[in-house]
């Protein structure tokens, strides 16, 4: 693993490798990209080939009650978002990829075959937000019991819906 040894000075990412997608400048991350869900997997693979060795994080976000977020031109806001944070050890860079997914069809390609480490993270996103990843070998719940109804981190999922049983109220006498 000599090429990923982060002793050399960080190099710039190779130009022209990455697919053209809407981007936003952000001071808190090196790159911020907004691919369409059809080009999402292709883009993640391109980043992997460009030297981003590790998928640091993947999570789903439900924007149902959010008043509005800043998105680049050409990206229509949808209810769900899948947020992927990739990490390059050799370049010491982070990139964040945000994919919009409609409420009616929250389905996106899996990236498990690109980054095997995304396995548990995608299962968590499915369990918590209800996003389906096509091609994932084991799309089951991971934190909640298998027979749980609903996806807890959705904004329309009521908090404290589990009925609490109190003692029977005392009768008149």
């Amino acid at each position, binding site marked *: *693993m000599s090429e990923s040894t982060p002793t050399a000075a960080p190099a710039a990412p190779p130009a022209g490798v990455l697919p053209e997608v809407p981007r936003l400048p952000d001071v808190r991350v090196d790159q911020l990209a907004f691919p369409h869900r059809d080009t999402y997997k292709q883009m993640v693979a391109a980043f992997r080939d460009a030297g981003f*060795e*590790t998928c*640091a*994080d993947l999570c789903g976000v439900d924007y149902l009650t959010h008043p509005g977020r800043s998105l680049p031109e050409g990206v229509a806001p949808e209810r769900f978002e899948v947020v992927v944070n990739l990490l390059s050890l050799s370049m010491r860079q*982070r990139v964040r990829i945000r994919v919009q997914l409609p409420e009616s069809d929250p389905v996106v390609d899996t990236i498990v075959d690109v980054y095997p*480490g995304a396995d548990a*993270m995608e299962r968590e996103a499915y369990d918590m937000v209800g996003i389906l990843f096509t091609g994932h070998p084991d799309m089951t719940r991971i934190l909640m*019991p298998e027979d749980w109804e609903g996806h807890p981190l959705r904004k329309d999922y009521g908090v404290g819906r589990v009925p609490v049983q109190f003692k029977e109220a005392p009768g008149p006498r």
Partner: protein
Amino acid sequence: MTEHEHDDEREAGPDAGTESVEPGLEETEAAHRHAEEPAFVAETSEGAQELAARDTTTAGELRQEVGAVLRLPEGGYVDPGDIDIERRDDQTMIINMGPQHPSTHGVLRLMLELDGETVLRTKPIIGYLHTGMEKTGEELTYVQGCTNVTRMDYLSPLHNELVFSLATEALLDVELPPRAIWIRMLMAELNRVSSHLMWMATNGMDLGSTSMMIYGFREREMVLTFFEKTTGLRMNNNYIRPGGVAADLPDGWQDDVEIICETILARTYEYDELLTGQPIFRERTEAVGNISAEEALALSVTGPILRSTGVPWDLRRTMPYLAYDKLDFDVIVGSYGDNFDRYSVRLNEIRESIKMIRQIAEMMPPGDYRVQDRKVTPPPRARIDESMEALIHHFKIFTEGFRVPEGEVYVAIESPRGELGCYMVSDGTSKPYRLHIRGPSFVNLQALPLLLRGGLMADAVAVISSVDPVMGEVDR
């Protein structure tokens, strides 16, 4: 006996009872027990999350369960013959380990497929400690948030608070006074020492060295006593908060810290004598649970496990936060990625942390321990009696909290277990819109099938221990 044979016998049991002319008392009891068994099994079942027999498992899932990293970042491929997915079911046995097993460090449940004593497939089943902390975090203000996140990784609570505070401050765009930054570093490094000591203790216990357990807990208690003196609590401190820390260091803290450094550093050399050179310990740890750098990177593994494979990746050095770029320390790496390397990385990280703590104690700048912005931190208690403004600010912060500008941020720090990340989305109110914690233990657990494959059942306990999963953080 395989699973299938066992099932056949179980079904044959009641039938045999009805066929006999006069069923004896023992036989009817046996039939009752068999009849009750399925209901009991169903109660603890996680259904599709469990490890299934080979003939009902797809090839992709099988590959995951044997820990195959089929597509490596460098484009290399693992030979499919190597992962041995063509084996028949009747030669193997699926057994269940946990969730209540003393060696699984909490409520981790593993399902293992064994051939004799050799582990073929593993599937970690988690969620037994799930408390919905991410959902709870959406209902708490940024001021209250620290009390929530500090309970995730209960062995390094200060790192949880730190990452939450750093994410909030990145969205708020506030700059901290230097003393707050250095106090945070001091506490974080002390916490790393206590967390690694706890790991040394439990790892020693898992390998049968009960003396190591006693020693590890004894030394850890020194650090926790200092935490109690500084923060008021041994664990779940709620000390690092957005805008700084909750209180200044107590009088005479330099002496306390120096005693801790001196004692623990001397004790680490005693651990060397107890474990490092000991033949039994080395037999149990060397060349057990190997992982290569490529596999670790592909599986998103970070922290001591990644460093044990020889990758010098430590966020304190490679992506410095706080003021770690002003400290002089070494990043400890191993070479083989086995249990012993993970042990030595952690043992030497204790020494490096002590080196850092001494530098921090020397260079601790004077000044404020929190930012003097009344919109973020409450006024001093004495000001409330004198100033109406101070009273209003105090009231507003503790009832409504402060508003954080709309935006999203991902902040990562090096916790004792690896990259601890916090992805925070704000909608401009005083509560996070979405709070996602990237727990290093949660991600590192994915390496278990790979680490256990081909190893012995008796080594499984040692391997689980060397991954150092904290279930509070895995399940959140």
